[in-house]
């Protein structure tokens, strides 16, 4: 799957996250994660994002995730939505 246009998903409400994806045709996967629990859970958030990217066979994307305490299922859902909106 190729990210061909900018797309967003999610909210900045508590327990949610806001995901932005941008096309990036040759620079691989570029992730920016902002979270108040970055030190403790940042690596898990990144792992979840990368799992979804792998599922969608994304090789090039710029993805920013603004976390407001989202659980794993919410992160997955919001990333999937943003990716599908970007096609």
């Amino acid at each position, binding site marked *: 799957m190729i990210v061909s246009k900018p797309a967003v998903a999610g*909210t900045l409400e508590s*327990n949610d996250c806001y995901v932005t994806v941008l096309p990036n045709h040759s620079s691989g996967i570029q992730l920016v994660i902002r979270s108040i629990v970055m030190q403790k859970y940042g690596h898990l958030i990144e792992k979840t994002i990368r799992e979804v990217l792998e599922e969608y066979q994304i090789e090039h994307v710029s993805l920013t995730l603004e976390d407001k305490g989202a*659980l794993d299922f*919410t992160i997955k*859902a*919001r990333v999937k*939505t943003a990716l599908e909106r970007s096609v």
Partner: protein
Amino acid sequence: MNGRSYLFIPGNSAGMMVSSFVLDADVLIYDLEDAVSLDQKDSARHLVNEAVRFLPKRSQCWVRVNPLDSPYFMKDVDALIDSPIDAFLLPKCDDVRFKDMYAYIEATAKRKNVHIKPCVALIESATGVFTLPKLIKLNVSGLFLGAEDLSADMHMTRTKGSDEIMLARQQVVLHARVKGIVCIDTPFVDVDDMDGLQYDAIKAKQFGFDGKACIHPKQVSQINQLFGYSDEQLQWAQGVLDMAKKHADVAVFNYQGSMVDRPILLRAQHMVDLARKWGLIHE
């Protein structure tokens, strides 16, 4: 499928979803229909789909999908057919719409080689009420009254007394009993009027409904209490069952001065089974 409280959770609200599983609702209904704006249908579908596979399961979990004539119904079913949800709640049902929706769900389950989910019909139109005799001949697992849409369709004015929906309530309960399936009453929409909720729920129970929809977590405990059983009722039921064990060789016996025969015994057993399920009786 029996429950006392059926709490609607907006399908695109991560926060409410996270808190929903710690509430005492017997059934959580994740809503992909009215609670979700058109531009968030895709987002809600993903969120519900991930949530039902991730969150610990304390209650039954149903999903209200979008109507048959929307561009979302098939996508909703495709996404959730192999998820661990307990039932689909199908909106805007009459006999024909239910038959068509059920056919798609059945075909999708077959295609994906999974068991078909029970399908509960939301009765919220004049045609829905009118075609109940035909509807219960189909594979419907429950009837759910939706009075707000019904009132709009019937040009009725909704009142707190709910006299205007008396016929619909009676029809829904009557047909559920004929079919032997669960029936659930419409939500009470003024979430700040707890006395009104009490009055409305008592009335619904008098009509014979098994449970009632909730649209706010604060309605749950009151509805659980009203549609559940008191300690006295459960003591009576347990007493009947204990006495029945001692009189296993007779069809009729006396308990606390009243005759107990098979229908009474079945009712007592039903009460105890439900109470156990709801956590009112602990082994």
